[in-house]
């Protein structure tokens, strides 16, 4: 089955403190698929994800060359174009980090936070969207009666699903996940795996992972990052 290309990366070079992390990386990512990126620690997998939402720009001593285009309603736009609004990009390309990072506020406020940032403040609509995002992140049933509790009271797995819900509330077209299950136990990880497989109907998903078994369970395609180059992994066979 041929799917449309969602992300197009061309000749991407990235250096951090003078070390070249990515060398002339070019890749295509298809819509509604899960692509896993594997490779040893510290090789630049997270950095690669951050080039897709320009989050690396907050790091000092980093430089990047190359092009990243994403397909928005059939048209490719270069996300490094000066006219491309950064906040909008990060709403289109959501990201979930390795360690769950709920903000120190209530469960409800955490999920609604991106809406607040976007200036969306119609209260009933916010409540509706929060519920929907929590449902999509398989968390609604567990927290529906305690939305005003502090988010830090949730278990690690729940916190991570909360972070996924928070990333989903703006309906991103692309979801980047940086080792989303590495701080969780096997049961919590399994829930998130199932969730991701379900989410690919709506999003294009890129996930960095260490766990080969996990990668084989959920990924449609596996890429390996080694020596700054992104190559199809042997796991694809």
């Amino acid at each position, binding site marked *: 089955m041929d799917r449309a290309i969602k992300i197009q990366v061309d000749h991407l070079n990235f250096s951090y403190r003078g070390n070249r992390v990515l060398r002339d990386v070019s890749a295509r990512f298809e819509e509604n698929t899960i692509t896993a990126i594997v490779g040893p620690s510290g090789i630049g997998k997270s950095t690669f994800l951050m080039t897709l*939402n320009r*989050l690396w720009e*907050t790091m000092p001593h980093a430089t990047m060359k190359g092009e990243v285009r994403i397909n928005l309603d059939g048209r490719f736009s270069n996300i490094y174009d000066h006219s491309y609004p*950064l*906040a*909008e990009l*990060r*709403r289109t390309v*959501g*990201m979930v*980090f390795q*360690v769950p*990072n709920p*903000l*120190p*506020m*209530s469960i*409800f*406020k955490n999920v609604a*936070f*991106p809406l*607040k*940032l*976007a200036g969306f403040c119609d209260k009933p609509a916010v409540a509706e969207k929060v519920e929907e995002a929590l449902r999509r992140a398989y968390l609604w049933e567990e927290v529906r009666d305690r*939305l*005003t509790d*502090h988010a830090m009271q949730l278990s690690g797995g729940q916190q991570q699903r909360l972070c996924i819900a*928070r*990333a989903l509330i*703006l309906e991103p077209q692309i979801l980047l996940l940086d080792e989303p299950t590495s701080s969780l136990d096997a049961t919590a990880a399994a829930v998130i795996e199932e969730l991701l497989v379900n989410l690919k109907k709506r999003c294009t998903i890129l996930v960095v992972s260490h766990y080969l078994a996990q990668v084989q369970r959920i990924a449609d395609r596996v890429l390996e990052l080694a020596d700054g180059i992104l190559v199809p992994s042997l796991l694809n066979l």
Partner: protein
Amino acid sequence: MNRQVERWMIGVAWLSGIVLLGTVFSIIGYLFYKGAATLTPSLIFGETQPMDALLLRRQVFDGLFPAMVGTFSLVVLSVGWAIPVGLATGIYLAEYSGKTMKRTLNLFFDILAGIPSIVVGLFGFSLAVFLHKHFSERIYPCLLISSLSLAFLVLPYIIRTTQVSLDSLPPVTRLTALALGATRLQNIFYVLIPKSLSGILSGVILAIGRCAEDTAVIMLTGVVATAGVPKSLLSNYEALPFYIYYTSSQYANPQELMTGYGASIILLTICAVLFLLAFAAKRGLTYHALYRA
């Protein structure tokens, strides 16, 4: 040998702690021992009825009430000037400035922190004289000049604590809101500042203490022995540390010295009240920024 050193070290640490706590408690205990007897309504309100004094209907002549009001307004004003400027500078240093700029400005703020308060007082005095000559005959050393000078004195504390607490936030906290589409300013105001309020608060508390105790600056910039409750920003005022200073340096009889101890207790109480206010403000702000659903 090594274990001996470790044990010895722990002993020294405990000893230092005990000495410090002991000193604090003996100072406070001594103050109460000496001053408790003077703590009567007449120490504060003199011959005036307390209600009349509090509602400013009658002036208090022989009590500490005007000095309490003076110190309280002085601290609130000074910290009020210093907080916005200090916060903004701290945010700039932590979030926006380049490396060279940061180093240069930090050097200046260290120098500012090291300026003796009497020099700041002299500067405030010269400012008052300058304004009097060139701007308006109505300007003398006054509450406004004093509070501005004190603000200048405590600015480095607030700048430094703001900057340090922002700098020490973990990188992932910094990225969280950005990854969700926050602008730089949204990130600072919705996440970074609320998360570093505790650190900033410690700077504000230092500043409150410094403003409440300082005598050198206010002696040159507008405090007087009898002025009554200050009527405006441009009037003279009384202040507790100055009262303590002149009663203890020129008392005529032991009773008068005792009122100095009484005034010290009141000064400590005012500081405690201000600290509590700062804590309450911090809790309220954190709640509003982070927890309110």
